[in-house]
């Protein structure tokens, strides 16, 4: 006699209370409100009145938008939320952002996952310097709101094009209502660089800096921070676009559970090679930004090309983001899956 019992734990809720739910679920769109000609704010509420999961400031929600699954920063303080707010920039490239702009109206249902924290504040920070460029204002607003609510202090630098500044009113109102939050604005590249240089030079000991914005602004942000003598551990950022990657070198991946050897050619990512070999790997952005496809590995020659892992995590050499990172030419990486 053979007795076989199959238990499916994929739908098991390890934390039974609704306020712990972060899996795939449906929320109702309560409000769709244009903030600028290209940015629209969506406010999502539970369909059945159950509580929403709280989140760390700077967290994002994954939204299924037609064919795409995109990550959008949540804009509130994250403490005991009654709704989730995301502000979406229309990219105009037929992607998920366009779908949300064109197809979604109040009352619709959206499939979401998360929230997930990839840009959380350092908990023992004495003060925060928050830097936003364009639509990068969304996680910065979340940080500023949480700091205001918890009684901390922060200086917000917002770089925007006049007439295209989402949430500018919210930030001004926050600064007016809280003496410990100040807002400085810049509307040109020159002003932004000057403001960054001036403000990085005058933050109290124990400050941490956070920035979200276009790549060029984040480059400047890091350079100014380094020139101002800030240790890297104090300088945090979140990217929403990634630089173009070169095809990379050929290498071999060995799947530890099966011993199967996968030859990964240039131009093919380790993620693609694993998926084609039937090894399931959760993934999302496929450009080394979101951290979803981080897998455990063993190997001496890893070329880390992601924008997520810290220097220490890279040096440890025991994980990589398989959508962009690879083995060095001709080497072998053991994938612990």
């Amino acid at each position: 006699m053979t007795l076989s019992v199959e238990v499916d734990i994929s739908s098991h809720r390890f934390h039974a209370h609704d306020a712990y739910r972060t899996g795939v679920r449906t929320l109702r769109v309560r409000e769709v409100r244009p903030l600028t000609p290209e940015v629209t704010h969506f406010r999502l509420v539970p369909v059945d009145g159950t509580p929403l999961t709280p989140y760390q400031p700077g967290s994002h929600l994954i939204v299924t938008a037609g064919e795409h699954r995109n990550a959008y920063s949540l804009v509130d303080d994250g403490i005991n939320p009654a709704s989730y707010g995301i502000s979406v920039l229309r990219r105009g490239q037929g992607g998920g952002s366009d779908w949300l702009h064109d197809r979604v109206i109040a009352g619709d249902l959206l499939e979401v996952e998360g929230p997930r924290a990839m840009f959380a504040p350092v908990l023992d920070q004495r003060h925060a310097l928050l830097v936003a460029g364009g639509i990068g204002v969304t996680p910065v607003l979340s940080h500023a709101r949480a700091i205001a609510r918890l009684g901390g202090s922060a200086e917000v630098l917002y770089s925007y094009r006049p007439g295209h500044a989402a949430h500018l009113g919210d930030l001004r109102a926050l600064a007016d209502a809280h003496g410990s939050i100040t807002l400085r604005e810049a509307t040109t590249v020159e002003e932004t660089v000057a403001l960054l240089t001036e403000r990085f030079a005058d933050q109290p000991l124990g400050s941490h800096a956070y920035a979200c914005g276009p790549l060029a602004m984040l480059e400047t942000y890091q350079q100014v921070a380094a020139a101002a003598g800030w240790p890297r551990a104090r300088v945090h950022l979140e990217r929403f676009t990634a630089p173009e990657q070169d095809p990379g070198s050929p290498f071999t991946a060995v799947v530890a559970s099966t011993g199967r050897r996968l030859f990964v050619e240039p131009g093919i990512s380790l993620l693609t090679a694993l998926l084609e070999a039937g090894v399931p790997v959760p993934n999302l952005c496929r450009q080394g930004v979101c951290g979803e496809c981080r897998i455990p590995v063993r190997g001496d020659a890893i070329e880390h090309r992601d924008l997520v892992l810290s220097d220490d995590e890279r040096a440890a050499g025991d994980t990589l983001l398989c959508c962009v990172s690879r083995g060095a030419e001709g080497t072998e990486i053991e994938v612990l899956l």
Partner: protein
Amino acid sequence: MTLTEPVTEVVPPPAPSLPDWPADPPAVDPSATSYVVVAVGADAGTREVAGAWVADAEGRAPTTLVVLDAVADPRDRAELTEALERARTGVRVMAVGGQHDVLAVLTAARDAGAIDAELAAYCTHTDDLPMYCAHCRATHRVEARPGEEVTCPGCARVLEIHAHFTRALGSFLASDAHAAGLPGPTGARP
């Protein structure tokens, strides 16, 4: 399944949390935009190291030299606190003196928000240390080393100084050296 090879347990080397002092004074970090050099005590070695640091740092960025007789002195303490409060992120704090004083300065700097990347220190000697008594719950300066026994200046118990340093308190942990032989709550000896 048969075991063909003996299983040996791998025991990691003991990793005591003792301060790891550099043998030579560390170099001035050139990436800073200001410096606070804190020298505690009047011995020649301290003056020499502080002088060399200041000479190097002054050529790079604004530098504040804080010279203290004793970190426990309220006026000296206030001077250190004021220098740390004035400091902006981008500063590097460099401390030199005996082990007890250097640890007290580093603890004050951490309390003011500094992280490891912003701190450098050099000990001219390790004859004394800040000791936290687990019984009277205070930190005292004692002239002893980890593993030795001392009489607590606070509660007069005989304490063993353990090879355990905690940054949160800026002290070595010490506890009653003879607690195992003390009578229990019922008066029975173990």
